[in-house]
């Protein structure tokens, strides 16, 4: 398969690059982009794209690559892939569900604990020598608080399972009620926000869920509420979130994703009631290997004319 050309549209872990290079001829977009001639030469040969949560395959890429057969995303989200265009051209699209569910759920709970118990602030307090001059403040208890989850898919369910072990009451909002679930369902996200203190955003990003957490939801959550976002930055109206945090209308936020990654609004950088992560919800060695293996398996299946393992369409 060495003759099959694969385009990497964004950096991925070294393990995946190595595994791809064992099997295919790999071009990294960030390297070839500065060389228009090379780009022209290879565009007729590219049969596969490997994208990520940050950069997938938009209309521009798809139009430029007439031989494209598959977009294999190193992510569970596929909002950066033009699915309509792919469907038109008969291009297979795959993602990496399930293997990263545990890590993302662990990250969500870790963010909630870090936000409520101010763990990062504690660490800064000790490292700066301030402990020698005075005591640290009290922080807010996590166990037993009411938890609301937006999206009860794989990640939402995994978050719920963990939160239950902390004695939290769980409720959720999603497109439709999940009959097999025992948690309380709210068809209206405002009602969910009113009922809970910790709101986790864990749904897929679609037209309907764009800015699903807006001013009204933030107001309903209230000044004691915190928001944890392990979905996509665009799930939250970021300017509204910012002003709520700065004006004390929201107690805090734990954010792994932002509307314009890797840009993070400057005002957040000075706040003690937020925890900021560079989109690392699934970034562990173990999961990275599992996700990489799944990308490889999907590509190999495609080029062996077998059914891919985790198709999106």
């Amino acid at each position, binding site marked *: 398969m060495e003759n099959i050309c694969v385009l990497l549209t964004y950096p991925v872990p070294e393990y995946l690059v190595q595994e791809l290079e064992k099997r295919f001829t790999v071009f990294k977009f960030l390297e070839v982009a500065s060389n228009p001639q090379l780009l022209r030469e290879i565009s007729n040969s590219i049969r596969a794209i490997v994208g990520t949560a940050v950069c997938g395959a938009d209309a521009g890429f798809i139009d430029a690559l007439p031989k494209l057969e598959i977009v294999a995303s190193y992510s569970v989200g596929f909002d950066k892939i033009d699915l309509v265009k792919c469907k038109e051209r008969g291009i297979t699209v795959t993602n990496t569900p399930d293997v990263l569910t545990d890590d993302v759920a662990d990250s969500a709970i870790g963010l909630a*604990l870090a936000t409520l118990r101010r763990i990062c602030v504690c660490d800064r307090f000790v490292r700066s020598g301030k402990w020698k001059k005075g005591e640290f403040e009290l922080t807010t208890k996590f166990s037993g608080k009411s938890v609301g989850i937006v999206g009860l898919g794989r990640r939402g369910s995994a978050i719920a399972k963990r939160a239950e072990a902390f004695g939290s009451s769980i409720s959720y909002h999603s497109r439709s009620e999940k009959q097999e679930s025992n948690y309380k369902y709210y068809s209206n996200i405002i009602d969910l926000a009113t009922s809970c203190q910790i709101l986790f955003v864990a749904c897929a990003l679609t037209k309907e869920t764009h800015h699903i957490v807006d001013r009204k939801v933030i107001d309903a959550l209230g000044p004691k509420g915190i928001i944890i976002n392990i979905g996509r930055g665009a799930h939250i109206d970021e300017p509204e979130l910012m002003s709520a945090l700065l004006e004390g209308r929201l107690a805090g936020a734990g954010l792994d994703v932002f509307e314009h990654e*890797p840009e993070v609004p400057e005002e957040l950088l000075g706040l003690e009631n937020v925890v900021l992560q560079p989109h690392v919800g699934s970034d562990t060695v173990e999961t990275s290997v599992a996700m990489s293996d799944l990308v490889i398996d999907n590509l190999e299946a495609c080029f062996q004319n077998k059914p891919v393992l985790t198709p999106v369409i």
Partner: protein
Amino acid sequence: MKASLDGSNQSGEKMAAMDELPLVLVHALPPFEISFKGRLQSRFQLIDSLDSTFAPHVSVLLCVGPSPVSSDTLRHLPSLQCIVGSSAGVDHIDLAECRRRGITVTNAGPSFCEDGADFAIGLLIDVLRRISAADRYVRAGLWPMKGDYPLGSKLGGKRVGIVGLGNIGSEIAKRLVAFGCRIAYNSRNKKSSVSFPYYANICNLAANSDILIICCALTKETHHLINKDVMTALGKEGVIINVGRGALINEKELVQCLEQGQIRGAGLDVFENEPDVPKELFELENVVLSPHKAIATPESFASLQELIVGNLEAFFSNKPLLSPVNLE
């Protein structure tokens, strides 16, 4: 009695009150104090000095924070029957002397155990997933160069060794099961009601664990329980979380192991000489440091108030104490 010779009206009132309300000595060395004195004063007669004329008659001592209760303290209190503690640990109380004199001791474990467990797990996820380090990274504006940002380590499936399966240890175990961790423990004695594997030897526990969470009491036996041998048994991928007492770990050896990469990382809420923290730790990205606040939330202190009042009332009405410490 001295008080009757003292012409002050205050003492006269106190003498009268003494017949009505039970007497409690509030033992609080500065800077420690209780915030709910008013509530106690409506139910109990409070004195605050070992030199008070009433001290010899006191049957209950309320110990505020880690104010030491030494054998010397106890010598001032010949009628003492019970010490009501206000912290999870009781290592500041001369337990041997209490045992000898038949004095019961209560601690604040039940009030603090959920918060203690939450914080231990928060520290653990932070160390494995680099939450504080990544937060620093973003705040320093380094994200655009993230291509080389180190990956963290998955929590699910890891073997967790809990050192001390008391109030806090049990709550930690309950939570980590939901994350898919495998639990084992070391404790003074095997707990018959618990199904997790028990290791009598701490090195064996460490050898069979990826993570050690230290949450046992500090006693003569457990001083420096975690030393270089235990850390070597834990191994290069191992993580240590300490929400017990600093002296449970040989701090010098811990710092060496961390600096030399003999263990993966550590989350520490307690240190041997608080608030002094070995400055070598400040250079390390694989440690998370906290100023002994694992249990400090308004919720736990509200619960503590209820527990203290509950223990005092139980004592004076001859009912079972709510949170007695086993002095054996």
